[in-house]
């Protein structure tokens, strides 16, 4: 078993390796590599390693043409978690409120239906997908482009802690490896590789999310794309995917259907009559507080209270002055 040696060699040389190099350097490294000591060190830090020759290695990932030597895992969940049906939700970091809303909602509904929600813990769409899954106390997995001990970006340290409560943070890079731009495309192949389907929420024309989608297509996995406004540069990439034949994602059911899952009906929380009127209006289209006040006949103060009620019930979200359903 030399998977760990290869992964450690790559980390030590700041390089990326899929196959064992035939260099003398690697031979020397392997000679002097103490696998047991390395495993112990990982264990002390609370991390685990699953090599691609281990039986526990996720079969879908092993099936891609350049599987990583192994995965480092952070979190208490068993490695079998990675073999469960999973869906990747990826998209732009600088996304619009719409993208954030859709990502969160998909995260919620797909995790709620029992799928593992996979993403990259980046800002924007990634983080919202994770949060959505956490909202429903679902299982979510983050795949990093750096060591699993690096909370990258730093602002998501809390998110990482929440993810590992029930899910995993994984990476092909050994702990201690710093994030570098060239590692992220490689990371994306793992996101796509671990899942039977990849959903692109919002992506610019040259976005990392499209790399994930390309990997998924190459490996014959399903690719979904959320339709965006044709006038918005933020959606140019995801709309281009649709034109190329990706499946349009208009509701979480579209994805669940591909997995043969029927979503359990969710009972809507009971809300006041005033709130129901507002909710109905918001379901039509996102609106500002002033528009809702006029539509519902409530004064500004009362409307603010009603919106908070809906927000606490998880029925609307407020961003940049606009109130949206979901």
């Amino acid at each position, binding site marked *: 078993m030399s998977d760990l040696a290869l992964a450690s060699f790559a980390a030590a040389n700041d390089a990326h390796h899929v196959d064992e190099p035939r260099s003398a350097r690697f031979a020397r490294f392997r000679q002097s590599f103490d696998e047991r000591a390395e495993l112990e060190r990982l264990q002390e830090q609370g991390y685990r390693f699953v090599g691609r020759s281990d039986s526990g290695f996720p079969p879908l990932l092993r099936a891609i043409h350049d599987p990583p030597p192994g995965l480092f895992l952070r979190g208490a969940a068993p490695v079998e978690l990675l073999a469960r049906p999973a869906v990747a939700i990826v998209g732009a*970091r*600088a996304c619009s*409120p719409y993208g954030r809303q859709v990502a969160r909602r998909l995260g919620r509904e797909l995790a709620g239906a029992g799928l593992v929600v996979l993403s990259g813990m980046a*800002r*924007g769409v990634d983080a919202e997908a994770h949060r959505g899954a956490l909202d429903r106390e679902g299982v979510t997995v983050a795949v990093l482009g750096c060591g699993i001990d690096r909370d990258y970006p730093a*602002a998501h340290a809390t998110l990482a802690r929440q993810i590992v409560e029930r899910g995993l943070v994984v990476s092909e890079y050994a702990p201690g490896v710093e994030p570098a731009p060239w590692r992220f495309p490689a990371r994306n192949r793992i996101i796509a590789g671990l899942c039977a389907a990849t959903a692109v929420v919002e992506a610019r024309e040259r976005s990392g999310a499209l790399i994930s989608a390309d990997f998924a297509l190459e490996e014959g996995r399903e690719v979904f794309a959320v339709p965006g406004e044709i006038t*918005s*540069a*933020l959606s140019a990439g995801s709309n281009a995917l649709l034109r190329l034949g990706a499946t349009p994602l208009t509701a979480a059911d579209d994805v669940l259907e591909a997995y043969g899952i029927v979503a359990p009906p969710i009972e809507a929380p009971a809300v006041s009559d005033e709130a129901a009127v507002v909710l109905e209006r918001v379901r039509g289209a996102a609106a*500002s*507080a*002033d*528009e809702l*006040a006029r539509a519902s006949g409530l*004064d*500004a*103060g*009362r*409307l*603010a*209270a*009603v*919106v*908070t*009620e809906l927000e*606490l019930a998880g029925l609307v*979200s*407020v*961003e*940049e*002055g*606009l109130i949206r359903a979901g």
Partner: protein
Amino acid sequence: MLARAVTHALVGLEPRRVDVEAHLQRGVPGFAIVGLADRACQEAKHRVRSGISSASLEWPLDRRITVNLAPAALRKEGAGFDLSIALAVLAASRQLPSDGLTGHAAVGELALDGRVRPVRGAFAVAEGARRAGLDRILCAPESAPEAALAGVDPVPVRHLAEAVAYLRGELRPPPVEPPVAEAAAPAPDLAEVRGQERARRALELAAAGAHNLLLAGPPGTGKTMLGRRLPAILPPLAPAEALEVTRIHSVAGLLSPERPLVTQPPFRAPHHSASVAAIVGGGPGPRPGEASLAHRGVLLLDEFPEFQRPALEALRQPLEDGMIAVARAAGQAIFPACFQLVATMNLCPCAGRGDPAAECTCSAQRLASFRDKLSRALLDRFDLIVTVPRPRADELAAGPAEPSAAVRERVVAARERLRSASPRRTAPADELLARAVDRLPLSARGRARVARVARTAAALAGAETVEPEHVAEALAYRSPKELAA
């Protein structure tokens, strides 16, 4: 011959008694001012000498003149000592009756032709005179109404010759009526703001509860316009507050002779290029900054994130304690700075965010650094944060909205209610607040803020207790997602 006149120097806002002693002796003729006088004060020599000559009085040519400003350890600056120095010299040269200056203080700058010019801080100097047991103060006519507010009898003198005539008992200056508090020029009215009901409501809550307010949104949505209209819905200052504010404005030299008493809450809107000293006060003889000038009123910081970071951080002390301590090598000056902060900002550096007609072109990093500038600690000082969306065309075409006067009536009533019997939360309201803390990112300070705003909402509604709906409304003005780092 020795003679003495009394005036006051200002340390921050505090008047300190200064005895101006003039001594004439035989010797080589000369004129010296001692007692830690600064440049402007040293130059008094020339003004006083010319002033006395112009007043057809006699300059003691053959004497050695020494003027001492006691206490010698206190730094004196400015030209306000001119009048006292001239009077002391005149008394020492027996051109004034020996007891003429008893019971009088004097403040004013002399012109070369002997006219008396007003100086800043006359109100504070007059207060010092009252505390020192002096009941009359000689000053320029422009300063007289201010001085009258401090409870001493001002003697307005236009010219040094008039002062001398008065002290010789040859002239009786007209009595100064204590100024009547007139209504100030009308502030911009809230009726001019079309639409924006949510922001108007937040403004009303801010006025009623003296809360700090942050208005965020794309450009052209009326954020600044709203902020400028806050003073118009605030109740007028109580008499004691009015004197406090007047003292600060007098020291800053901002009072108008026609309306010396500041009765309306002051409004200050410094530009975002303002330095730390301009905002919180400073200088060698510390002067009040914008934060103090806005004491008991409104400080509007337009384009909040454009201010220098140190200037923003310097606001944390006054926001917490209601005062500013300016420490200098020579000592500390304390300025009251209990103001209401209103700030406006765009949602991102390119200002495209939140505007349906524009697209944000900011990179994730640029956006993150923009948000980092608003430290959490600073955002936490705002009780109300409202994102102002762009109004639709039909809103702008609508007729005038509710005028400021109507809103002010509600604000005054709510303030009265908050003072007398502040509403308390009911059990269901407590429950809602606890649930919100559980579900939303809400810090301990954030929770306290929500509780305060809920109380204000209840007071505005005329309710006896704080109900869940008031807590729910208050929660709507918490720090929104788009400003989180």
